[in-house]
């Protein structure tokens, strides 16, 4: 890969990163806090690409001998011809392709089924009272933590409203699920809440639902890691469009 091609690949990668970070697309892959760094990195990539191409066109009279790329074959003498070009650079097309052409969705029910519910990571003993509102809007994580570690004490009889997508439990029952991220989708872990009462039936996995209900004392062991999954006694549910920020 010669310098001009390297410049083009950097331009594409920078452009793809900029496109993802200036729209909501980046939220499918990383935390919202990374946005300024992504924009900065995208700009720097584009600038590096422009400088590379500009210098190469201006000083283009010299034949491109990319001597920097022969780490592995020692004792290879000769005047700089017949060297290997940095073929590894071609791989940089893959993330460009992933971002611009494929643009995969945020992790959903398949990934949630592969991993155990990740409540234990958030273990605390101090639960502030619920915010105002009827029904009170809670994150799936907040509800599940209060239900398991506080045995529902801070939930009481209040009606709560949760938003999540459907994944399938051990016996095929629907679980209201939300993925939590700390950095990027590679470390995403699911938080699962089982549904009882007038639970939704026949809803396809990955459908987003808004569910209202009350605390239930039932629990279920996640077969993947043996952690407890709390239940919600469902009063109403309705399908909703997927939120902008699908991770919690």
């Amino acid at each position, binding site marked *: 890969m010669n310098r001009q091609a390297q410049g083009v690949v950097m331009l594409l990668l920078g452009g793809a990163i900029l496109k993802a970070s200036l729209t909501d697309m980046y939220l499918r892959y990383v935390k919202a806090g990374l946005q300024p760094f*992504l924009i900065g990195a995208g700009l720097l*990539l584009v600038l590096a690409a422009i400088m590379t191409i500009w210098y190469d066109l201006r000083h283009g009279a010299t*034949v491109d001998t990319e*001597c920097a790329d022969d780490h592995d074959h020692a004792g290879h003498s000769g005047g700089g011809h017949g060297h290997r070009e940095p073929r590894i650079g071609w791989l940089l097309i893959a*993330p460009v392709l992933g*971002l611009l052409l494929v643009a995969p969705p*945020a992790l959903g029910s398949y990934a949630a089924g592969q*991993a155990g519910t990740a409540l234990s990571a958030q273990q605390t003993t101090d639960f502030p009272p619920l915010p105002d509102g009827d029904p009170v809007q809670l994150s799936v994580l907040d509800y599940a933590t209060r239900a398991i570690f506080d045995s529902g004490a801070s939930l009481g009889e209040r009606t709560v409203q949760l938003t999540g997508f459907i994944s399938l439990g051990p016996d095929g029952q629907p679980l209201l699920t939300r993925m939590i991220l700390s950095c990027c*989708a590679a470390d995403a872990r699911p938080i699962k809440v089982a549904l009882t009462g007038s639970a939704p039936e026949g809803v396809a996995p990955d459908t987003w639902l808004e569910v209202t209900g009350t605390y239930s004392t039932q629990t279920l062991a996640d077969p993947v890691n043996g952690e407890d999954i709390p239940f919600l006694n469902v009063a109403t549910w309705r399908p909703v469009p997927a939120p902008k920020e699908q991770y919690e």
Partner: protein
Amino acid sequence: MRGTDSHTPVTAPPKRRRIGSVEVLAAVLIALLLFRQPLASVLSTPRLQTWTTVFVSVMVQATPFLVFGVALSAVIAVFVPRSFWAKALPKHPALAVPVASCAGVILPGCECGSVPIAGSLIRRGVTPAAALAFLLAAPAINPIVLTATAVAFPNNPEMVVARGVASVIVAMLMGWLWLRLGKAEWIRLPHRPELDDLSRWRAFWAACRHDIVHAGGFLVLGAMAAATINVLVPESVLQRVADQPVLAVIALAGLAVLLSICSEADAFVAASLSQFSLTARLAFLVVGPMVDLKLISMQAGVFGRRFALRFAPATFVTAVVVAAGIGWVLL
């Protein structure tokens, strides 16, 4: 060794430029655009879709760290004079190692950025042992990572201490081990005659381009491997080894290598692996920032394959032993 003639105009040998890379690149891109629909449908099975999402996420997450790390390493390579390092580090290599390990505290970032930086340091005359100690310590003991660890383990503040201490010890041990056993010829840094005879800004952008394309290409390889492991190894397999103390330590250390999670996030993953002992999770946190698939891949790119094949296993063993020892004492 060679390449002194890299910028002397040479009449192009006839067989060199049959089809240039720009033309190949254009053809590849057009083909991808044409076959976009069939490609998308192939990638729509849940497993492949998860793979693609994880791969793209690792790349999106790592790109800022890579790009800023590369920019910083280019600054070191071009603008920081050689004499600065001679003054900043103790003369004796054995003393430079602990100083460089602790200097890792000041670099807030993750491991993708520290590989090109360590390469730059060696090129600027820093003794390889010290640069390698810095490479290992920086991603593990910087303030962001230690804060993340404290947040992830609210009930076990000793985890933060154990992680910091164990990581610094491993970095120093590896630095000293390199002084005793390391051979200079294992490290094959990219030869860069261009940096010496170019104007400074031109050298800066040349160094940026080279490192982004190079380390970035290896990062892609590592991200692909990590995504594959992420999809292929279901968590339920781990459940079975969690009860055996020795096996659990080795299993989580191995998992850290395979998953290649960014050091700023690995504490949260470790916290959620609650079926494992704290010592096993400490091994996960100590090994992760020092040895993982994407790092091995990037080290092979920056330092050469002969180096990476020796350095990574040695670091892995040292990290596991030290983590187990520190875990036994502190946790």
